[in-house]
């Protein structure tokens, strides 16, 4: 069992009191405990079991405009005493920064809604093993699949965030994740792909057989890929890649990138940065949402934001420090977005495939090719050639490139949005990108 609220808040208040006593004018403490149990299978046999119990504390102390922090996984009283003393001492020697402060009192969350983020069910290791057996049997039913690796993990956590403004709140959450990675082989090539399902509640996890079949099918269809020539082409991004592009957008509107001047979206509020009918939401109070939360990592309450309204940028993601620097109020986005998604488009998936006579359907990208300073994008990619609305043959060893400033203006979205992850996107088409191949 994870530690209860009482244990965590006692530790937190001990630290706050001690920090104040040693000369801190303000302080903030997070104490968190998580327990996870994983079982891994490989080729239908038990491969690994892993239990982890993590307890950790983060303390930030302020002396007026000076700030420093410590973290530790050793919560013994004598260790905490040494660390807090060290933290306060370091604070004294850290230069002042006029924007350092705890969040404004009136922005702190006052109520905790029950967002259904905690499922107390415990899935015994025997049951995980039984689930994984079924998953791997189904994943390896096609003899082109030569290797399967699957895992089931159960994660429970509890935390308290407390600060010297009197804030002290926290709650439990849980997640259950099943995943399968399969390798397929034929005479000419070997390919790998995956599928996973991650939910707050055990009963919402995908059926084992379905998950196995999906992983296997996605892998087998990649066999015997071709390389294509370099050209300008329309690109269709599978949902799992499209959500990554949405995450890059989120990092480019983080108030830290904006205030430091290191984002291509600086000074773009109320400007048209996306195609006309694109809207983007960040909704923290989605029931059972993988990214749901009651407040941000500073305790600031979070409301739903319509970040982009019909192509116009409406909000940055603002925390206390960068908000003060930009002369804006925190909108509870310290630590980033919650449940971020594109509003559905109004075109069917099959019609999206038909938008141009020839396009590339991308299912995987590799490399760290997103530059939020310049907006340049260049990554390695794997996918399929689509001709006249039909997926024709697999493609790999190509790169796709463009600049987000142009890409965002050329997005068409399908109407197939689902809430599977914390960031979600419908299938996405972007016209006018460059593919480099032969």
């Amino acid at each position, binding site marked *: 069992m994870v530690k209860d609220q009482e244990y965590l808040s006692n530790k937190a208040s001990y630290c706050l009191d001690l920090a104040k006593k040693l000369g801190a004018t303000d302080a903030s403490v997070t104490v968190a405990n998580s327990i996870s149990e994983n079982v891994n299978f490989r080729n239908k046999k038990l*491969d690994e079991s892993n239990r982890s119990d993590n307890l950790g504390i983060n303390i930030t102390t302020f002396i007026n405009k000076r700030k420093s922090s*410590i973290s530790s996984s050793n919560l013994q009283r004598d260790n905490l005493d040494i660390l807090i003393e060290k933290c306060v001492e370091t604070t004294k020697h850290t230069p002042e920064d006029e924007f350092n402060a705890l969040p404004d009192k009136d922005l702190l969350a006052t109520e905790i809604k029950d967002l259904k983020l905690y499922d107390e069910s415990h899935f015994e290791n025997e049951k995980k093993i039984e689930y994984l057996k079924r998953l791997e049997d189904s994943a390896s039913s096609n003899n082109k699949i*030569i290797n399967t690796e699957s895992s089931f993990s159960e994660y429970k956590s509890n935390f308290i965030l407390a600060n010297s403004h009197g804030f002290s709140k926290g709650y439990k959450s849980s997640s259950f994740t099943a995943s399968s990675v399969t390798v397929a082989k034929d005479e000419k090539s070997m*390919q*790998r792909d995956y599928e996973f399902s991650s939910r707050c509640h055990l009963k919402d996890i995908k059926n084992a057989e379905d998950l196995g079949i999906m992983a296997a099918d996605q892998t087998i269809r990649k066999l015997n890929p071709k390389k294509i020539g370099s050209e300008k082409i329309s690109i269709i991004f599978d949902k799992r890649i499209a959500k990554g592009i949405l995450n890059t957008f989120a990092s480019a509107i983080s108030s830290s990138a904006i205030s430091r001047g290191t984002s291509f979206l600086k000074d773009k509020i109320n400007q048209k940065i996306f195609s006309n009918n694109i809207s983007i939401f960040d909704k923290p109070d989605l029931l059972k949402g993988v990214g749901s939360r009651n407040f941000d990592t500073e305790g600031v309450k979070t409301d739903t934001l319509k970040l982009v309204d019909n192509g116009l940028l409406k909000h940055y993601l603002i925390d206390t420090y960068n908000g003060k620097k930009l002369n804006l109020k925190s909108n509870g986005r310290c630590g980033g977005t919650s449940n971020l998604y594109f509003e559905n488009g109004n075109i069917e998936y099959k019609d999206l495939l038909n938008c141009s006579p020839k396009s590339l359907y991308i299912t995987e990208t*590799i*490399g760290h090719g997103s530059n939020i300073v310049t907006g340049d994008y260049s990554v390695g990619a*794997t996918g399929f050639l689509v001709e006249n609305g039909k997926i024709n043959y697999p493609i790999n060893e190509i*790169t796709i490139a463009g600049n987000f400033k142009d890409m965002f203006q050329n997005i068409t979205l399908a109407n197939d949005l689902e809430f599977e992850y914390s960031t979600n996107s419908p299938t996405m088409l972007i016209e006018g990108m460059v593919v480099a191949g032969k």
Partner: protein
Amino acid sequence: MSNFFEKSDLTRNDAEKIVSDTLKKCDDGELYLENTKSETILLDDNKIKNSSFNSDLGYGLRAISGEIVAYSHSNEISKDSLKKSSDNLKSTLKSAKGNYNYSIPKSNNTYYENINPIEQKSFNSKVEILNKVNEYLRSKDNNVKQVTANFNGEQKSIEIIRSGGETLTDVRPLIRFNVSVMLEKNGRKETGVYGIGGRQSYDSYLKDDKWKNVCDEALRIASTNLESKPAPAGEMKVVLGPGWPAILIHEAVGHGLEGDFNRKKTSAFHDLMGKKVASEGVTIIDDGTIDNRRGSLTIDDEGTPTEKTVLIENGVLKNFMQDRLNARLMKTKSTGSGRRENFRHIVLPRMRNTMMLNGKQTQDEMIKSVDRGIFAVSFGGGQVDITSGKFVFNCTEAYEIINGKIGSPIKGATLIGDGPSILKEVSMVGNDMMLDPGIGTCGKAGQGVPVGVAQPSILINKMTVGGTKL
């Protein structure tokens, strides 16, 4: 050296008993104890943005039977907690029938000193250098709009207790100093990043104003990028500069030569042992024994002394990198490559300092031989799909080559290639081998570990460059 039992109700004797009892029917396993102290001091946007200190303590108990690994870790070093972990492992491995392998090689060599870099330099003097970096860069070039500089230092003490009570220890210092600068000119923004580091004190890297060299290099890269043109798209010849570009070797072949992927036959290299996988003249080693290097280790995280492992010799595949588990299952010996990010993670076979050794040609000869191609000098990150063998990396400083001459700088582009075939496309190996500056972190299965790379300049006949100019 940490005394892990000093403030615990668990005595060393108790721990040894629990370990031996847990592992009695297992093939391998150990109790791994770790105490890490680390600090970050960050200057950004003209201010000290972050000064933080972390103290991390915990253990991981591992039991292996056949191919099955059972692992349990906690940050509470107590009798009760270790017993719980032991019960958890025993219940997973109830049908274990192994024979514990007690033997572990010994060595008296060490590759770094037992120091605590955090305490060797005062907080104030670190802050002072960061402020100097900021002033120096901003006064040197009016186009400088943003400076970020940081110190990261750590001391990691580990202790490994094996069944029967054999104990192995190591204390590992590590530091890194990094500078990032952003320039803005005529509405265009570009960044340059450079850093240095390794397993010595901060001052070994920074004394005599050596921090200025780091600033100058970051500024030079950013200034170069301000003048860059769109990169070409398509297949062409690529000349790689010496040193850090060896992350190509790390991604393209290094990961594919790690024991676990080959035992599981998911690596594109698994059936190529003894075969020719690279051009003649290409020799690649993975070396954990170079003094004070970021990727060096006196012992690995299973207690095996590290070594210099020859992976590819004159084009022929000679060895994989092994931890104890994969070595046993593949009937070979550990190469001292068993590593973990920290006590929260299981051991995996990993790279240390991966190096391509010198050949005979000069960089000049390579450039002159290229009609149309690119010259890549510095990279950001890379990634590989070890199954399909495809790998990428991102250029952060590159130039076009036209008719045997270096031309304009080009914008950051991704290069993509095929691991098993790329080394056969190496047509010249330079005589100018360089080590990287000590900044690499390798990610695998969610675990980051410090690594190094090295290579001379090389000419690759054919790679796909992911630019936008057709």
